[in-house]
């Protein structure tokens, strides 16, 4: 019931969409009615089109994101804990930060070809910075007094990293990961739109080229739903890990 109330605005939007298209306020060529889109969605779900394209997309997204988490955490932690490493990496990170990673699509395609590798590399590059920054800021922001109290309770320098720095930095690390997850979806679709032979981004692009707008909208709604589900799952995991923050 609570969930129904919380997501009522979405239902109202769908209804509004249906009404304005049925009344002819918006051309049906530009925006097919919601119910027509849902029918197209059902057909693509039953004939396997959606699943056949969603699976490779999600695998690429997961691979790129996982790689970015491992490497980004390493770089962020290295920068926070090593002054020399920070001196080297700091300017690189700053320079790379404002670059829209989608600008790298053609270059990465040239370097890594047209297969999955190029897309995973792009997703990795897009997700890397939020992970680095979340880790770095999280670790740098740890109150020194927490480190001192652990040391005076008998923790070795190494133990402090696991016992204090990591859990204290966790809220910001998770914020970085959440941003990275959103970026993974962005780069997944962008790379597949430009060049691919499967995936949800490819599906949206090819359906659009064919003028199959109801099906194209269905594919867009699918990716929206997947992104939303990923974000909700992530929020639930965060709430579990950070349940001490009441």
């Amino acid at each position, binding site marked *: 019931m609570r969930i129904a109330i919380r997501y009522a605005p979405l239902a109202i939007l769908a209804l509004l969409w249906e009404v304005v298209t049925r009344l002819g306020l918006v051309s049906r060529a530009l925006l097919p009615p919601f119910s027509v889109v849902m029918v197209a969605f059902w057909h693509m779900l039953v004939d396997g089109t959606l699943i056949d394209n969603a699976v490779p997309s999600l695998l690429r997204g997961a691979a790129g994101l996982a790689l970015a988490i491992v490497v980004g955490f390493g770089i962020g932690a290295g920068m926070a804990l090593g002054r020399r490493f920070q001196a080297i990496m700091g300017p690189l990170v700053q320079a790379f930060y404002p670059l829209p990673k989608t600008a790298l699509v053609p270059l990465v395609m040239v370097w890594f070809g047209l297969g999955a590798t190029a897309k995973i590399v792009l997703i990795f590059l897009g997700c890397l910075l939020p992970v680095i920054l979340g880790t770095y800021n999280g670790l740098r922001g740890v*109150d020194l*007094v*927490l480190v*001192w*109290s*652990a*040391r*005076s*309770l*008998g*923790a070795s320098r190494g*133990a402090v990293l696991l*016992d*204090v720095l990591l*859990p*204290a930095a*966790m809220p910001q690390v998770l914020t970085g990961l959440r941003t990275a997850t959103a970026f993974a979806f962005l780069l997944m679709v962008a790379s597949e739109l430009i060049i691919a032979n499967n995936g949800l981004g490819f599906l949206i692009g090819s359906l659009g080229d064919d003028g199959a707008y109801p099906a194209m909208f269905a594919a867009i709604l699918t990716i929206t739903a997947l992104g939303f589900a990923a974000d909700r799952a992530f929020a639930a995991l965060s709430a579990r890990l*950070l349940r*001490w*923050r*009441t």
Partner: protein
Amino acid sequence: MTPDSDSLGIVVAHLSHAYAPTAGTGVRALDDVSLVVPPGSFHALLGPSGCGKSTLLYCIGGFLPVQSGSIRTARGVVTGPGPERGVVFQNFALFPWKTVRENVLYGIGKRGVRGAEARDRAQHFIDLVHLTGFEENFPGQLSGGMQQRAALARTLAAEPDILLMDEPFGALDAQTRRIMQEELLGIWRQTQKTVVFVTHDVAEAVYLADTISVMSARPGRISRSLAAGFNRDSDPAVFKRPAFTELVEQIWEMVRAEVDQARRPALAAPVVAPA
């Protein structure tokens, strides 16, 4: 390993400490400070803010490097933090992601005690600070006074010989502070720890300490040390006695003189005594 009885306390000899020079000269926080805290005694460091009393405490804690001079305890020369010197911080410094029980268990675990024995010991210290029933709460769910009780239990549970306390009750309201002072004295009488207690509250120092060192600012020095000793008396109304109020007044005058002294060079006009 039978340490001399006199070396079980703390011996600070000719300690100086300057914070990192930023604009040419460093800030001399401590200048040639010497201090002997006998084992089992309660020593208060009192002074205006910026007099270096917390710096001295953090040097003893091993958090700040000794630049010149030396600090010794029964375990030898202090070169870094160690579990024989437990610390209680003004802002509690509890691990917010751990429950009260997990916080108290942390130092016990670092001492190599595990399982049922560790749980029993944690419970003993949680009971000692009257936090029974709040074991599974996170620090964020507790009041300031309760958080400081938890921090005290965590420090005591690691069984240090020495307790270093940095204005531990400074963030608490007046009533809670009073109760915490009484309880600290009770625990101190039971456990016989050597205590160094930093405060800027004169009455608190007189109430708690055997000896009070009044510090002066810029550079930080110990200007006077006085015996108090009201802490051996368990009369809760001890602070109403004339001898108590007289000592508070006497020390107040010294602290005021230190504050004036510290201010003088910064003022163009002579300081006018308040009416």
